[in-house]
């Protein structure tokens, strides 16, 4: 039971710190909203039908918003050497990884839950091009995509925590690692918006879900297993 208590107490601490400082969520929300406003003006969304590009625009905004948050996710640990305090304690490194990842997953998801309705208003010719029967698929794409981003992002953010150029390391290392997440996530999200993906067969979407789920499982397991080796012992 102790590992579960340890996992919960690390996650609870991260949530409590975020509730008190609001550093991650507020900066992520501002960034994602600004991105959408810029996209809206750039593509003249009122006159042009952008539903074909909806999935791509959505994930472009989300991936950079997530990086912004993930870069902040170790700020509290860096202050006053707290990460050393965490590493000194008799906690399995995989527990630390899972707890930190779960925290990041929650924060990214909260931002997306707020951002998606705005995205719908800006970019989708509501309600004619929305396939409501595929809503579950859209939500599943978001969940699986977020797990991938939080899993890879937490791992790379840990690598970056003791480097001088940590703001650069996450996009440079994280983006290539996340390509297998982004491509299927764009296809799945696009399928609900009546974009290009809907012209593809249902098999393509089904395959994308499988690829995304498999990637999440394999990467999550691998990261949890090798997390110890990236931390000094």
């Amino acid at each position: 039971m102790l590992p579960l208590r340890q996992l919960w107490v690390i996650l609870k601490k991260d949530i409590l710190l975020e509730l008190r400082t609001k550093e991650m969520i507020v900066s992520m929300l501002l960034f994602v909203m600004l991105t959408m406003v810029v996209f809206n003006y750039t593509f003249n969304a009122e006159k042009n039908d952008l539903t074909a590009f909806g999935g791509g625009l959505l994930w472009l905004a989300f991936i950079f918003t997530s990086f912004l948050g993930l870069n902040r996710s170790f700020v509290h640990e860096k202050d006053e050497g707290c990460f050393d305090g965490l590493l000194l304690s008799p906690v399995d490194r995989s527990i630390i990884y899972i707890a930190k990842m779960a925290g990041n997953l929650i924060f990214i998801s909260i931002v997306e839950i707020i951002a998606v309705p705005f995205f719908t208003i800006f970019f989708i010719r509501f309600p004619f091009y929305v396939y409501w029967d595929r809503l579950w698929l859209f939500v599943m794409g978001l969940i699986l995509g977020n797990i991938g981003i939080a899993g890879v992002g937490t791992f790379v953010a840990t690598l970056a925590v003791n480097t001088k150029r940590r703001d650069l390391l996450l996009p440079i290392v994280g983006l290539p690692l996340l390509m297998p997440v982004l491509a299927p996530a764009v296809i799945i999200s696009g399928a609900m918006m009546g974009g290009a993906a809907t012209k593809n067969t249902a098999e393509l979407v089904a395959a994308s879900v499988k690829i995304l789920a498999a990637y999440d499982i394999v990467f999550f397991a691998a990261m949890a297993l090798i997390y110890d080796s990236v931390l000094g012992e």
Partner: protein
Amino acid sequence: MEIEVQNLDKYFGRRQVLKQINFSVKKGAFLSIFGPNGAGKTTLVKILSTLERPTDGKVTIAKAVLGQDPTEIRRRIGLISHSPLLYLDLSAYENLEFYGTLYGVAGLRERAEFLLEQVELTHRRHDLVRTFSKGMLQRLAIARALMHQPSILFLDEPYSGLDPHAVDILDGLIDSIRGDHTFVMVSHNLEKGLSLCSAAMIIEAGRIIFHEDKKDIDVDEFQQVYRRSVKGEL
């Protein structure tokens, strides 16, 4: 032996920061380690406290071998360093509760309250640590390090930045647990380090250049060796 270090080497890239370190510390002993800045003292403490991996050599702490059973070692050790290892946006009590839960401390609330009383921070228990002075932070750091009742304490310049009151509190706490506990302290304060220790060591450029039991130490000679090491004359 409570701590045993054999042929320890540590490299950062191509730079060797610890060279063939060998020493042991008996249970209940107090080892003070001195040396100039950059000598490798903090790296040594980080290795002993499982925060860094040695490049080569064997370290045994409380009969557990570093690298084979780090979790068991972590249960037995506590670290007080010049960084307090405290979350600034948690309260004093929340910090102790957090670390206590990680260590699986039984009677968490009572233990936290007891330690807050010992470091005279009971009246600030619900205040965010961000509002604490340096001395108060260091006092709370002492409570954090003792939360799980470690049998071995590593002290990395623990008196750095402390006001006289906090020095008295730390002295009192060390006095109260001496005998049952083993201490390894890194310090630049010769007087304090020598007064507390049962053995003293000087590290210079990653090598041990002096290591004696306190009873065998000629204080004048020791001070001369230390001053020459700090000036880089050795």
